[in-house]
């Protein structure tokens, strides 16, 4: 999958380039389907079957079912599409931020407020 191109390394950050976009296509396509209320309901009905319908590989499926954002990113997920999956479970961006940084939600929110000072 790696094309061998020199890539910029930014700690704690994934650049969603062609390599990641190829890797994550099925996962992102499933998340894109969650624009539809009917599809969101179908996912809740049978999550594994829904993942299979979209052709997620084992890594993607495990990551999606666990709702672990860093695992979904490692499986090629894109933040804009993953947010639609998070939305089904009422996760907001502070939940997601706290989870990825290993902080409590309150601590994560306080960090954001601090960044504005």
């Amino acid at each position, binding site marked *: 999958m790696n094309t061998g191109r020199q890539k*910029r390394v*930014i*700690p*704690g*950050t*994934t*650049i*969603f*380039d*062609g390599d990641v*976009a190829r890797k994550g*296509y099925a996962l*992102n*396509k499933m*998340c*894109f389907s*969650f*624009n*539809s*209320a009917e599809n*969101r309901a179908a996912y809740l009905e049978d999550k594994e079957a829904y993942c299979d319908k979209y052709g997620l590989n084992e890594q993607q499926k495990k990551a999606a079912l666990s709702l672990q*954002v*860093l695992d979904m*990113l490692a499986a090629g997920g*894109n*933040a*804009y*599409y*993953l*947010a*639609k999956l998070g*939305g*089904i479970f009422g996760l*907001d*961006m*502070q939940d*997601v*931020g706290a989870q*990825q*940084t290993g902080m409590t939600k309150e601590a*994560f*929110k306080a*960090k*954001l*407020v601090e*960044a*504005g000072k």
Partner: protein
Amino acid sequence: MAKIVGGINVTHVPYIGRAIANNLQQDPYWKPFFDGFPPVRQWLAKVKPDIAVVIYNDHGLNFFLDKMPTFAIGAAAEYNNADEGWGIPTLPPYQGDVDFSWHMIDSLIEEEFDMVTCQEMLVDHAFTIPLELFWPGQHPCPVRTVPICVNTVQFPLPKPARCFKFGQAIGRAIESWDSDARVVVIGTGGLSHQLDGQRAGFINKEFDLMFMEKLISDPLWVTRYSIPDLVELTGTQGVELINWLTARGALLGEVAKVHANYHVPISNTASGLLCMESV
């Protein structure tokens, strides 16, 4: 010929839509953000635009990775908003201007910006929220619209220097339209924020404030940076500020600041507002 009355750049976080729906404008969390808008609304009432050209990025409502245009433009009589999956109320349709869209397409492609043209186009929160902030509760929105969508999802993204030139071509397209229409250019997104990865929650106030200042006085300043530089400086989604740069380019020449506001945080985002007019 059509006249550009000025430009407005603003942040487009989905939760703003929810705050509006729940009337939270005076809530302590939201007040510093919403209080930025009355001066902009007064300016709009004074300059009276007929049309808004809205430069934004789609977040997976109209476009997916199956077909991801770098630059796309609407050419529809009407643009619909739709469910994005986050429980934000869907807003009523926005009126387009098909003649103007096709004039812009002709002009932009003549200038070698090979647009993807869309006779049907759903518009997401990045398009609807700014209009809702500028013309609150006015349905239908009192201006006709032309959506211009810039890819900020899948890298490589158009580099800053290219976006500025694209903006200039948009400005020339507007000013060459044989019409007495008054046009406001709107750029949406940013400022610094990162939703994903261990660096989630990254904000860079110093850079944001410098960017807002330089956008007035020296817009080419930001073109010294590459897209990866901007990701490093402003976050994976902060890079949406290329929409602000594109809108600034469309104003063609010197501008003066009408009003600005900056507040951290709105959701995970540094929110910015910058209203400019030509001098």
